[in-house]
């Protein structure tokens, strides 16, 4: 009998832009693995449902996949809210859940494995670079929800450590598309660079409007380029002077990456860009395969024994990535990329492999205790 993988990705609604590549990444990995003989000889059956960006649907479908389809593992979710919708349901089962996005970090939950990048891998690298290169004054525009707010918190903490100042912080409600006021505020605050962690298609209009108003400031981000491929969607030079730190972006040109890109484009010739979410989704299934084969079982408890060895690693297109036993987050090879006025992307700095160390540092140790909680710099374990 096959191994059943439940997948929850939005391919309708506002977030379809992101969900589609995630589905594609999963499909590609499943196809490759099945061709190569499956997991321990068992074929993978991928059951994908489309929650349409609706948290209630995430819950319905998480229940459906776990109790009706009886999947062996659940993968997916885009926004933090969808992840938080899924977690309580998964916590009442013994089925592992893999979250495949880069996110604001801090979830300390034994039932969840995260394979996207987290702030210590992105902000702790990018922000000091930006401050050194462009100056100590930063202005933040962030989407007004948990991701944006917690990311802004990280920024505040790191900027302070480095002796800089946050000259302005603006939280934008999701769905807002008009930024004239914001642009004026930025000009008034005179920052050296802007941290752009605005989210969603509507808020992306910021780049176009800022360019039209000749704002022309350096920008840094943890989600632009590798995730939303804004440099492909907007006419140059809207994204000029954007920098980001990423474990994956399509312009990466190592031989493994080239190989992976070739396979992807062969299967999905019409997709504009392979973003890091699609890439993570692809890796997630290989990581799962590695865990199951290591444990010779699909049970969460057994998989966690493999993680606990500290050797739960695979060779991903970016290089070797491993799951950290204490936080169950994944280490990544991080690179800093920069966009020029023609929207060409080049690697400016290679940070090597960075561990997801923050959770362990603040006291999350899943090998000892299952917190099931999400922590932030201002909300640490007691």
């Amino acid at each position, binding site marked *: 009998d096959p191994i059943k993988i439940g997948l929850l990705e939005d391919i*309708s*609604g*506002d977030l*379809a*832009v992101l969900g*589609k590549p995630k589905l594609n990444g999963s499909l590609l990995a499943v196809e490759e693995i099945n061709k190569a003989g499956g997991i321990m000889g068992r074929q993978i059956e991928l059951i994908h449902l489309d929650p349409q960006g609706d948290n209630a649907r995430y819950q319905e479908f998480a229940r459906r996949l776990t109790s009706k389809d009886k999947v062996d593992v659940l993968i997916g979710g885009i926004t933090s809210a969808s992840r938080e919708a899924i977690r309580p349901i998964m916590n009442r089962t013994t089925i592992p859940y893999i979250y495949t996005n880069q996110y604001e970090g801090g979830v300390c939950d034994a039932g969840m494995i995260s394979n996207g990048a987290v702030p210590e891998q992105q902000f702790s690298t990018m922000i000091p670079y930006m401050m050194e290169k462009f100056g100590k004054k930063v202005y933040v525009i962030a989407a*007004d929800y948990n991701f944006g707010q917690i990311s802004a918190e990280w920024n505040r903490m790191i900027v302070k450590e480095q002796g800089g100042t946050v000259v302005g912080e*603006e*939280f*934008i*409600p999701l*769905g*807002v*598309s*008009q930024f*004239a*006021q*914001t642009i*004026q*505020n930025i*000009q*008034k605050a*005179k920052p050296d660079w802007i941290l752009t962690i605005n989210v969603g*298609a*509507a808020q*992306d*209009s910021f780049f*176009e*409007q800022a*360019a*039209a*108003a*000749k*704002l022309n400031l350096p920008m840094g981000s943890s989600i632009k380029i590798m995730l939303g491929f804004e440099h*492909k*969607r*907007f*006419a*140059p030079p*809207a994204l000029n002077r954007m920098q980001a730190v990423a474990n994956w972006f399509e312009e990466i040109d190592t031989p493994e990456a080239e190989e992976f890109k070739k396979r992807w484009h062969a299967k999905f010739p*019409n997709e*504009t860009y392979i973003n890091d979410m699609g890439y993570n989704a692809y890796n997630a299934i290989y990581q799962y395969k590695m865990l199951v084969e290591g444990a010779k079982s699909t049970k969460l408890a057994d998989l966690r024994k493999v993680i606990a060895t500290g050797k739960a690693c695979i060779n991903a297109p970016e290089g070797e990535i491993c799951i950290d036993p204490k936080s169950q987050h994944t280490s990544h090879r991080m690179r800093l990329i920069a966009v020029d006025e023609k929207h060409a992307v080049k690697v400016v700095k290679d940070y090597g492999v960075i561990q997801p160390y923050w959770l362990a540092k603040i006291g999350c140790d899943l090998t000892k205790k299952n917190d099931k909680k999400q922590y932030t710099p201002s909300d640490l374990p007691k």
Partner: protein
Amino acid sequence: MLYQFADVFAFLILSAAGLAIVFGMMGVINMAHGEFIMCGAYVTVGLVHAGFPLPLAQLCGTLAAGVIGVIVEMAIVRKFYTRPLDSLLATWGLSLVVTQGMLILVGSSVAGIGTPPGSFAVGDYTFSVYRLVLFAGALAALGFVYLIFMRTKFGVHARATMQNAKMARALGVPVGRVYALSFGIGAGLAGLCGALYAPTMTLIPTMGATFIVESFVTVVVGGSNVLLGTAPAGILLAAVRTSLNAWHGQIIGQIGMLIAVILIIRILPEGISGFLTRKQR
């Protein structure tokens, strides 16, 4: 500040102008309003990619939305004049079909075309000239609606039809054509909004949704006489939003605008035009 105000005003008016006709005058609760905006934007961007100059592409976008509006009116909306509440359901269904259909057919996002260059500086601030074009567009749309509906025979016939279609027909008004044309004009104005904003925004099939609350709110606050009410409603809401945006950021601006809507309606239960006509008499 003035620039910010003009900017918000343009956004409110352009997104509301088409709805003012379709909802305010014709009584159709058009949930697909955003999709007409999207249509105008997509056609514009598509044509620019195909090598058209931007203004021409915008004109085509507007017209395309108008023509589609006429078709939609004849195929669907026509049935719902006598039961406006059901038009909500029908157009909502239509909107779902269109947005998701676009997603499947065209893909999740389309490459942008870039805002026409040009900026000017005032003191420390630089502004995009194109935003002024938007403001001019908003004024033009208001003027156009006013002229068409107040100063032409077609306008008189259209208003007669909307107040009492049967009687208008009995007096010789070709009601079907008048309805189709009015809806077309409304859809075209929505298309204009999309066409004008296309260069400044990310194009996705659900982009219409970002306009819909603002447009309904503006039209309703304007009151039943949209020709009278929409502009002052735009001014009032833009003023509230701009000052709150400047004071404490966009969230407060947005929440504040909605609270202002609640308060305005509470104080003027017939909307701004109701208040103005009462004053007049």
